């Protein structure tokens, strides 16, 4: 005991260029894939379109600029819709709602799903069983049926739409989180926190959650894709934004009768929704691939 050598971190293996957070690492690796770049490009372009679009619109979304289903002209660059409004203006203004709704719904689903999943994984007793079986019941309904059920009972309220979409996604997120967290709750650092008397909330969100961020990120981007599709579908069915609001899903519904006469009014929103979901899906795919790579690389 005569000598007390102080070990200094100089002897460490160089950690330069390596990110500490697995999430950042996953994202960086994901960016190496072409698909992720394409996906991000698509998402970025469409988000930009939705955000800036309304300011570029040549007309008001409700202004009648001609007779119904006019083909492209100088006044209406891509023609008019079923009521003679400018399709371009309505298209440029119609992205915000779908984006905002799907992002909010996804975030809400994440918060609820993560909380339930972590709680269930950490409890690992009857509460886990109750929570998981309850989620199974929700999962038994196809998303669209679940949402339609809720919306048709209460009415086409936007808050309800968001809640319903979130409710249809939360169980899947909860299952994923529970699965990923089950591995983590058995590790000793969780027990160490228990011995110290760390409150449950802190153990769930401070100790366990940071260890499952990567799979969660993949799931989140995938859920966003589904949210966009779901909300577009609901709007198309007439339970989302109500006329005369400009909304891509609604536009498809309103103008489908004139598809053969003036296809632009349908094709533009369809293409936008399609490209947006393809974009988010490519990002999710890239993240998932990067994540598998991570697991291979750090397996002990």
């Amino acid at each position: 005991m005569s000598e007390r050598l102080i070990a200094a971190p100089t002897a460490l293996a160089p950690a330069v260029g390596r990110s500490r957070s697995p999430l950042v690492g996953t994202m960086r690796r994901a960016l190496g894939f072409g698909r992720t770049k394409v996906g991000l490009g698509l998402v970025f372009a469409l988000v930009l379109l939705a955000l800036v679009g309304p300011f570029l619109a040549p007309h008001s979304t409700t202004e009648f600029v001609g007779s119904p289903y006019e083909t492209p002209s100088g006044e209406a660059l891509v023609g008019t819709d079923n009521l003679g409004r400018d399709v371009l203006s309505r298209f440029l203004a119609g992205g915000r709602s779908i984006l905002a709704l799907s992002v909010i719904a996804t975030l809400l689903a994440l918060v609820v799903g993560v909380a339930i999943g972590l709680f269930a994984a950490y409890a690992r007793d009857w509460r886990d069983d109750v929570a998981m079986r309850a989620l199974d019941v929700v999962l038994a309904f196809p998303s669209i049926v679940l949402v339609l059920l809720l919306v048709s009972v209460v009415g086409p309220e936007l808050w309800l739409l968001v809640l319903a979409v979130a409710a249809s996604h939360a169980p899947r997120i909860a299952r994923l989180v529970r699965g990923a967290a089950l591995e983590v709750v058995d590790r000793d650092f969780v027990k160490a926190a228990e011995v110290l008397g760390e409150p449950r909330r802190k153990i769930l969100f401070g100790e366990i959650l940071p260890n499952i961020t990567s799979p969660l990120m993949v799931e989140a981007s995938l859920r966003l894709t589904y949210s966009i599709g779901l909300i577009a579908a609901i709007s198309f069915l007439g339970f989302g934004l109500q006329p005369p609001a400009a909304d891509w899903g609604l536009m498809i519904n309103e103008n489908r009768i004139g598809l053969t006469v003036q296809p632009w009014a349908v094709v533009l929103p369809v293409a936008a929704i399609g490209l947006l979901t393809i974009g988010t899906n490519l990002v999710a795919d890239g993240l998932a691939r990067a994540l598998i790579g991570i697991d291979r690389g750090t397996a002990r």
Partner: protein
Amino acid sequence: MTTIPSMNGDYVLEVENLRVELAYAAVDIVDGISFRIKRGEVLGLVGESGSGKTTVGLAVLGHQRRGARVAGGSVRIDGDEVLTKSTGQLRALRGRVGSYVPQDPSVALNPALRIGTQLEETLVAHGYSARDALNPALRIGTQLEEAVAAQASNSSARRERIEEMMGEVLLPQERDFLRRYPHQLSGGQQQRVALAMAFALRPKVVVLDEPTTALDVTTQAHVLETVRALCKVHGVAALYVSHDLAVVSAVADYVGVMYAGRLVEVGPKEDVFNAAAHPYTRRLAQAIPDIAGRYKIVGIPGRAPSPGQRPPGCFFAPRCELADDRTREEFPPVQNLSPSHYVRCWHADEVRASSKLDRLHRETQNGGPAGDGEALLTVRNVVASYGAHQILHDVSIDVLPRTCVALVGESGSGKTTLARCVAGLHRDFSGEVLLRGKPLERSARSRDQQDRREIQYIFQSPYSSLNPRKTIGQIIGQPLRLFFDLGRRAADARASEALERVSLSGSYIDHYPDQLSGGERQRVAIARALAAQPSVLVCDEVTSALDVSVQASIVELLAQLQHEENLGLLFVTHNLALIRTIAQDVAVMSGGRIVEYGRVDDVLDAPTADYTKKLLSDTPSLERATVPA
């Protein structure tokens, strides 16, 4: 480097200048490895984790782990070069000529096949009694077909052979036993089955890779005996890879010491342990506790350089007292001390001449005066169970201030369960746990803050007990935040202070656990416990995931803290040899009961319980094994 000790005799295995590199970089994992093994002899290859001993063991059989490739040298079995053989030729070689016993038999055996089937498979795959060896000119498929065809006529021969094999490894030969699945066997029985498979085809060379590390001492003793007997009887040359010097001293005739990918010393067991010529060998011997003697154990500061980061000159130089300029410039050549003993050190003669005792006798009796004052921690009549399964039967112990009580026993003896009851991690028990005479709540969550603060728990594996997503500062800050009302700055200061108490620099605060070595991580775990200013420290096998040189320094640290901080220690371990070094009192546990409880020296010198006697005699001892007869 070709001057390896030459002796007349039938060398079965000859390894010369073996070099294994990382597959995609010209960085060596091991280099300049040369040794020979005679028929019926065992060479123990010792080294700490990352020293390359397993790499050598695998290369001997012509195998490399993913990401490694053989870059030079030769391995000859009975004069036949192994390294140039094709995959098919190697497959034919394995089992018949060379075989391998892995560390963990529960992973090596197929869980879906009965052990009889697996043993038979070994024989069938190598065409036992169908032909002498696999014909490399035939496709494997063809050979298998032939083997199947030959099966009917040979199955009774094989049956006989299997029974013989079971007898050799001291397993029951009944049909019922052969019909069991691996999970129905104990760890020791599984390892015996693996041994039986390895020796089944009477190979010339067997590589055993830490085959007893996962086993209890009693089982280990039996397996070691079996290994020795099998090698002698069948004239097999065995390479026994292990990190445990005491185990190697029990099983080997010759010992090779590896450090950072180099074989630094090879020689007869007695020479290497009693007249070591390499400073690393000596330091290693000083670092391991011995059941037979009262030694102080001394850790080796620093860490072994990993491939690609090795210094010019001798790799041990940064940790060596004898290092000089020449040592730092050039890696020492092989120096033959006797026909069978060689060393790679510039200062071998000095090391050999130094009269310094190989190991330092402990200056003080560890016991000192019996622990003073009232008990800090009392466990009274604790009966614990997991569901319907009762683990602890009426267990009582006392921990006095500045006293370390060691809880020893084999796996399943309930020692960890007891530790968890004390820490509030296991709630399903009756009886009492008292802190200074005051009964504690069962679960940590329902204990009050003060009680939680006073009892701190250190986990077995520092790889699992530190959250990889938190910095060291955050980890140590956790108890500070929970137990003390400190500002951020004060907390940081306290955290650095705690780090310094465990001999780590305060600058570690911003690092993450994966930037630290195993020993450093365990120090951080200790610092986290100390930050709470506890009065009782529960240490659950805290050194078993660490290398011996690191284990020694962690034990030194704990002993020091015990006195400096007036701590009571409850030290759970399966390693009987350790307790003389750290503990004053010892409770020997078996089957959930305390079978013997008393002062360490009393219990170890004059054990009364049969179980203790058995444990003591089964624990391998470097001293007992190397005292010249």
